[in-house]
């Protein structure tokens, strides 16, 4: 089998992994080497379904010996199998990198017999890439649950980011759908990675994680937030880019931190369960990101949703919005899925849904409100808030000024005053606001197309 055929099989097998970021580490060029890594990362393309392509995301092998019910690579699934040779994959990475197709490599694998044997092969590939090929670009490596700690350590010194996929949001679901996996096999490497990153920080290398204080910009903000929404961690661990720098040859352990993925909709856990779990993971293991992957029915298995079940795209979207609010806007999971509703509102975004439950906190005066308060106004993001805070230093703002600053009032208009004046869009009742927002959304091109054309047949 040639590389072209292998690539098709192994990219297809890797596409269900949601993580595809190249951010979190800054590394300059080295003489004789090729490639750099930049803190912000870079998306080089977008798939037909709109997901970003930033790394060469492939499996080293899809010849997996496990039989996880939800996984396309499970041993009982009759799909073509392939395995890359380390040199083949290293050359492919370099060829794509030089053409500006990718920022680096995302390397995962099915379990080739045992977790350790698989990790050894992955390490061999990365050692080749970092060694003889002198590749200084970004590498994200997946840790196979149950891998020996020594191998995890070697992997972490070759890769910029490591991830261990939790996959299912509860230990019971994991046991039911993945008989060979155990929760402790997943959590142990996460704890090890966290501990190694922590010791790296003490030595002045490796990823910069957060401290233990509450609020945005601290607990969840392992990535430097755009807006300074809260005090820095009490521990005094400031986010200095210099502390993130790590060389490709073992100077730093996992300088871009670790992430994980949760599958949404394959098991009955609620959004509250999922957000509580992600909060706990951020706190315990200093994760950079928790990715959510809407379950796509790929197997006819009585333990899984019916194959005709639509992919819960909007639920996934709302969870990402909620996650973002927790990491950058100072929200707690308990604020977003409060009371007796364990699921996020699919019709309105989580910030608006929250604002409608606390009408006594609005309207806020844009000329006087703190940055943190403005960030909680639906429709305002860090960019709008920065513009407001900057402009109001020069003079009191009016709605015309906000218009000139290109700040949208489509949603925010319901929740703010400007120099004491209400917006022309102001509506007092939360129910009426919700109705208006939902009806506006229903008339948008997005929902119109969905309504008119839910499953349009194509010719032939």
């Amino acid at each position, binding site marked *: 089998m040639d590389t072209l055929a292998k690539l098709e099989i192994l990219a297809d097998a890797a596409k269900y992994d949601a993580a595809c970021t190249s951010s979190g580490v800054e590394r*300059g060029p080295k003489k004789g*080497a090729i490639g750099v890594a930049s803190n912000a990362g870079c998306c080089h393309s*977008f798939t037909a*379904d709109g997901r970003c392509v930033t790394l060469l995301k492939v499996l080293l092998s899809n010849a997996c010996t496990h039989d996880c019910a939800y996984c396309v690579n499970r041993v009982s699934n009759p799909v073509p199998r392939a395995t890359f040779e380390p040199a083949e994959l290293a050359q492919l990475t370099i060829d794509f990198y030089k053409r500006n197709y990718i920022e680096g490599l995302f390397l995962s694998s099915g379990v080739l017999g045992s977790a350790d044997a698989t990790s050894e092969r992955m390490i061999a590939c990365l050692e080749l890439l970092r060694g003889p090929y002198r590749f200084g670009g970004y590498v994200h490596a997946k840790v196979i649950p149950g891998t020996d700690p020594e191998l995890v350590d070697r992997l972490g010194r070759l890769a910029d980011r490591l991830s261990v996929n939790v996959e299912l949001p509860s230990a019971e679901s994991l046991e039911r759908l993945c008989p060979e996996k155990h929760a402790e096999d997943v959590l142990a490497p996460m704890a090890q990675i966290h501990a190694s990153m922590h010791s790296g920080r003490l030595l002045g290398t490796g990823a910069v994680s957060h401290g233990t204080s509450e609020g945005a910009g601290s607990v969840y903000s392992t990535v430097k937030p755009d807006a300074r929404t809260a005090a820095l961690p009490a521990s005094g661990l400031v986010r200095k880019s210099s502390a993130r720098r790590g060389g490709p040859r073992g100077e730093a352990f996992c300088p871009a931190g670790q992430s994980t993925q949760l599958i949404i909709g394959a098991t009955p856990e609620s959004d509250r369960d999922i957000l509580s779990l992600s909060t706990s993971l951020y706190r315990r293991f200093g994760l950079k990101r928790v990715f959510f992957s809407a379950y796509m029915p790929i197997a006819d298995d009585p333990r899984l949703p019916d194959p005709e079940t639509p992919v819960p795209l909007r639920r996934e979207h709302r969870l990402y919005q909620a996650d973002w609010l927790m990491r950058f806007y100072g929200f707690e999971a308990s604020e977003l899925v409060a009371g007796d509703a364990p699921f996020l509102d699919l019709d309105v975004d989580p910030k608006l849904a929250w604002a409608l439950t606390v009408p006594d906190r609005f309207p806020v005066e844009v000329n006087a409100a703190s940055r943190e308060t403005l960030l909680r106004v639906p429709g305002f993001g860090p960019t709008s808030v920065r513009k407001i805070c900057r402009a109001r230093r020069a003079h009191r703002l009016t709605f015309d000024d906000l218009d000139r600053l290109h700040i949208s009032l489509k949603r925010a208009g319901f929740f703010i005053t400007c120099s004491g004046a209400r917006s022309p869009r102001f509506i007092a009742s939360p129910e009426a606001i919700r109705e208006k927002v939902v009806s506006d959304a229903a008339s948008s091109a997005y929902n119109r197309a969905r309504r008119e054309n839910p499953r349009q047949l194509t010719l032939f």
Partner: protein
Amino acid sequence: MALAPSADGVLTATGLSYLAHCPHAPLRFVRSGFAQPALGEAFLEVPVIEGLARRVYRGFAARLREGCPRVRGGRCQRGCPSACARRVYTIAAADDEAMPEALHAFLVGGFDHGREVRSLAARDPRIAQAEAFHTLAVNESEKARQFVRFSELSTGAFFALYTPKANVLPLVAGHFARRMEGERFLLADPKHRTAVLLSEGRLVCGPLSEDEVAELSRPHELSGVERSVRALWKRFYDALALPGRGKLERGYDLRANFMPKRIAEGLVELDPSVDDGWSEGAWAEAMEDGEAEAEGRARKPHARPVSREDATQNGAPGFAGSAVAGWLGGAGS
């Protein structure tokens, strides 16, 4: 004042008006060649004076540093996210005819109000416009970093044509030079007639003549492995798409939001002809031929590097006179 539509042009004109004790309010900055005087108006053609432009820029940067909490030891920190003074260059990258006037207002506002100049955007439409030009250039720079696609030529060097909406190649030249350390590449923008060239560790960025643009726009001889690598990339890209999440299910085209048509047209992964006719045997054969060619090439000496001196000696107003043609042709033979 009629001036070159560049940062140096506006900096020079601003410096001249200051030295002439001319009040800024009645002045109008327009692109040279586009100047249409109103009644009672007269235009002065202002050439670029590099020394004066540098002096004005240094003064402007020093004024913005005053009172800035990020400044350490009187210097801006490397990689400071605000990068206030460098906005002069991002604003100047805009193609818009209003750019000189907006940049002039930004400079004058900066000298008057220091780092608070951006807070004036809500009241001064010219500064708001300067901010908009800056945003455009930043976005276009990001798109260039994302969507430039290099091809390997038969010489072993890399080449790409890319047409952004603002003249941002000089802004992203450093990014590609760091990324491609040790390689040779030429990245050209035919619309703005600008090119970036890295050869033997030296980075040169400059304007292109019309002849050079024509020369660069013709098809070039690709390396043996280029078609095979493109086929690999196209196959990889197609394999990544997930079912059940496409345009039909979403109700709108998310990909088109991120990759507008003007960009999508130049992308290898969206070109259906890239993956045509690649049977397993044909692909392996092409790779073997390409690798043999690359091994042969590795023994050839590199083409003579193009230096900044070449660029100035060989033919202003061109980028490097015959250097571009020489780089493509000479290195290829």
